[in-house]
C-alpha cells in the first residue's frame, strides 16, 4: 500500500543541502560533451560589449549527460573570448528550469522542475543554475509514477548543480513525500 509521509519544516536562514543522487563524484570526473542552444523571438548582439540579449519566449537547452531546459521572457549572455562557449547566462523575470539528472551509480535519475520570480543565472564554469526570488522546486525520482519519491522545496533561492546533481535551497521550507511500499521493497 502506497502512501505518503513526511513533512519537515526547516527554519529560515538555514541552508539546506540535499544530495539527490548518491555519489556523483566519479561521474563528475568524466568528460562529456555539453551543447547549449538558445531560441527566442528576437536577438540583439551588441558588438561593442559582445553581449547577446534574447527576448520573447526564450528557451535555453543544455544537452549532455543531463538535460536542462530553462525558459524566460528575457535572457542575456556572453560568449567566451574564443566565441566557442556560453560563459554565463542570466534570465530576467519569472524563470522555469526543468532538469533530468545524470544517472547515479545505481542508475537512478531524477527530474527537477524549478521556478523563480526574479530570474536565474547559469554558469558554464560551475555548471550550475541559481534561481532567485521565491524559488520553488519539485524533485521526482524517475521513472515517474505513483511510487516515485517526491520532494517539494520553497526558498529564497535554489542552486542546481548540473554536474553533481546536488540541489541547494537557501532559507528553505521542505516537504518530502515518499512511498513506504517502495522503500520496503528495496530493503
Amino acid at each position, binding site marked *: 500500500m502506497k502512501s505518503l509521509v513526511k513533512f519537515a519544516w526547516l527554519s529560515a536562514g538555514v541552508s539546506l543541502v540535499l544530495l539527490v543522487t548518491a555519489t556523483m563524484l566519479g561521474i563528475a570526473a568524466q568528460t562529456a560533451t555539453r551543447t547549449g542552444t538558445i531560441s*527566442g523571438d528576437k536577438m540583439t*548582439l551588441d558588438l561593442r560589449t559582445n553581449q547577446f540579449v534574447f527576448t520573447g519566449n526564450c528557451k535555453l537547452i543544455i544537452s549532455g549527460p543531463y538535460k536542462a531546459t530553462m525558459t524566460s521572457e528575457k535572457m542575456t549572455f556572453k*560568449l567566451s573570448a574564443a566565441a566557442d562557449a556560453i560563459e554565463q547566462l542570466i534570465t530576467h523575470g519569472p524563470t522555469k528550469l526543468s532538469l533530468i539528472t545524470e544517472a547515479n551509480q545505481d542508475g537512478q535519475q531524477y527530474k527537477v522542475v524549478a521556478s523563480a520570480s526574479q530570474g536565474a543565472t547559469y554558469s558554464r564554469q560551475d555548471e550550475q543554475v541559481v534561481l532567485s526570488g521565491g524559488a520553488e522546486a519539485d524533485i521526482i525520482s524517475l521513472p515517474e509514477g505513483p511510487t516515485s519519491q517526491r520532494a517539494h522545496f520553497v526558498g529564497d533561492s535554489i542552486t542546481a548543480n548540473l554536474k553533481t546533481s546536488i540541489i541547494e535551497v537557501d532559507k528553505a521550507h521542505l516537504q518530502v513525500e515518499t512511498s513506504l511500499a517502495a522503500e520496503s521493497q528495496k530493503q
Partner: protein
Amino acid sequence: MRKRVGLTIVVIVVLAAIVAVIVGTRLSPQVATGPEGSAQQITEPTQPSLEQSTAKLPNLSIEGAQVTQRDEAGRIIWQVSAQGQFGYSENDQVLRAENVRWELTRPGQDSLIVEAPLFLASYPERTITFSKGVSAYTPDRSQLFKMSRLVYQADTERLIAEGGVRFRYGHYQATGSRLIIDNRAQQVRMSGGVHFARVSG
C-alpha cells in the same frame, strides 16, 4: 530639231547634277565651327558612357569595373567591383552590376564585405539592394552572414537582411527570418524565430 534634242539633254544632265549635289550635301556629316574657329565634326548621337551618365552623382568615381562612393571629406564609404560591366539607367538613376564584391567602410569597426550575384544602387531611394543569394563577412571572417536579399540604407547606415538569414559568430550560428546590421549602434538584431546554437568547424 537636232539642236532642241541636244539642248534638252544638256538641261537634263545639268538638273541631274544639281540634284546629285544637293542630295550629296545633305547626307554628308555637318561641319560646325569650334570655339577657336576650328572645324569640329558632329558625329552620330551615341549612348552616353557610364562615366558621363553618372557624372551628376555626387562623389562617385568609376574606374574600369570598380565604383567608389566617398563622403564629403573624400573618405571612402563603399567600394564595389564587378566581374562584368556596370550599367546605369539615367531615367531611374540606378546603377546595376552582376557578381559584385562590395566593401562597406564602418568607422570604429571592421569593414563589411558583401558578395552577391546582383547589385542595384538606387540614388533616388539612397539604397543598395543585393539579391539572388547574398553572403557578407568581416575581413577576419569572425562574422559571417547568409541571406536571400540584403538592402543597405545609406541614410540610416543599416543593412537589412531577409529570407533564410544565417549569422555565424565565432563557433555559434543564429538563424532567423530577418536581420538588421545597425552600423551606428554597432548592433546585430535578428527576429523571426531566432535559433542560436554551436556549430562544428
